[in-house]
């Protein structure tokens, strides 16, 4: 049995989700920020976190984006294999949603049509769309607009199998150190380990959308997440990079089988806003 779904449903949902993700911190990120404020000890660090807390209140009540960089819209679509999409082109429907959300929601248009010619598209399209086909007759939409302060500090490492877990940890720590204040700490760190060059980068991006505060179901990966969060928060970079304990709010690692010759690792950094918003239709 297939279920027919009109692509216009995507347009409306995505328009609303782009605005929601940019104006209001998700519940999991709010909880992570509240914890951070309790734990920070440094004077400037506390000051930065209290400014960010006040910023979130103003953004919510005044309907002003949390950050002026309202991102490039990254959209994950998990499409049930029993769904039949009708009523038009899916990509066009998604981009129509992005255009509507960014225009009507007073969000910044930050996308240029050509990476070298650099002319602004003026409606923040196109989105970066990742689709996957899954069992079922529903569609899960995740909208994760990504700011580029932190995106610019992200990295891919093609390690050797001999580098092992220690090499992976070193690579992740070096990415966080190199980013320092530029990624707008406190940050969330999405990591992909394994797969191929592009697969690990996609996993790192997807890992950012995981509910903050939850861990990998794999015991050795969970242990690595816990160990790395502790090590990162011992670096001293702190909120705003001005010194303190809270450099990262969370680290999420995803893994995938890989080749006998390789150990790819991608590290995608994200600021405290870590916009992500999910809906099932």
């Amino acid at each position, binding site marked *: 049995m297939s279920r027919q779904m009109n692509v216009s449903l995507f347009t409306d949902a995505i328009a609303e989700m782009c605005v929601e993700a940019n104006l209001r911190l998700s519940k999991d990120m709010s909880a992570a920020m509240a914890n951070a404020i309790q734990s920070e000890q440094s004077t*400037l660090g506390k000051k930065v976190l209290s400014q960010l807390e006040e910023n979130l209140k103003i953004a919510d009540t005044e309907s002003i984006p949390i950050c*002026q960089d309202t991102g490039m819209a990254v959209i994950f679509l998990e499409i049930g294999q029993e769904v039949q999409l009708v009523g038009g082109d899916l990509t066009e429907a998604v981009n129509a949603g992005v255009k509507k959300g960014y225009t009507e929601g007073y969000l910044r248009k930050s996308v240029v049509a050509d990476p070298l010619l650099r002319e602004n598209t003026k409606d923040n399209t196109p989105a970066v769309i990742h689709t996957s086909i899954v069992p079922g007759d529903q569609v899960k939409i995740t909208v994760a607009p990504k700011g580029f302060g932190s995106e610019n500090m992200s990295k891919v490492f093609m390690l050797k199998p001999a580098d092992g877990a220690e090499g992976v940890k070193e690579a992740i720590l070096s990415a966080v*150190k190199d980013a320092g*204040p530029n990624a707008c700490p406190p940050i969330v760190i999405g990591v992909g380990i394994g797969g191929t060059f592009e697969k690990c980068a996609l996993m790192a991006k997807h890992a950012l959308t995981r509910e903050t505060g939850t861990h990998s179901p794999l015991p050795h990966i969970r242990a690595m997440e816990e160990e790395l969060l502790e090590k990162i928060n011992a670096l001293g970079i702190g909120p705003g990079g001005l010194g303190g304990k809270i450099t990262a709010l969370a680290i999420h690692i995803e893994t995938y089988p890989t080749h006998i010759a390789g150990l790819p690792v991608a590290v995608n950094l994200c600021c405290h806003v870590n916009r992500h918003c999910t809906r099932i239709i």
Partner: protein
Amino acid sequence: MEQHIQVPFDKTTAASFHIGDYVYLTGTIYAARDAAHQRMMQALEKGESLPLDWKGQVVYYMGPSPAREGRPIGSAGPTTSGRMDRYTPALLDLGMIGMIGKGKRTPAVKEAVIRNGAVYFAAVGGAGALLSQCIKSSEVIAYDDLGAEAIRKLEVENFPVIVVMDASGNDLYAEVTKNL
């Protein structure tokens, strides 16, 4: 130390700041980011004049989100300063006295800061809604076609910043991570 300072300010005032100082700025600053800097450099290379005289002025690396009706500006936090590093020494040598942004700078910028007795402030990255409340008016004065990247004249009131590089070249970011 907390200070309330009028902008623009002179070299004596710039020299009085120390890294870690918390400063509230009131007065006029100018927003410019990547594309505006690139255009200004092209103008300088051609021997043309710039849309404003940077002497004694403070730049804010920022491109706002659109303003809602009745508001001067949308979200308006700092962008990463390092992307402007290639262009910054030339503007400092023209007399620009201060910069507001976030993140690390190159050694060339640091040398230009020392050479010209300037100062680099950080605003809190990600606090764009809060910072927008300190901006009382905003007017595009050049490169309107660049949209969010146009040069804007901003009137600010008690705009909160932290001194991250002072006129002697002390660098708060480097201090924080020197033991890494």
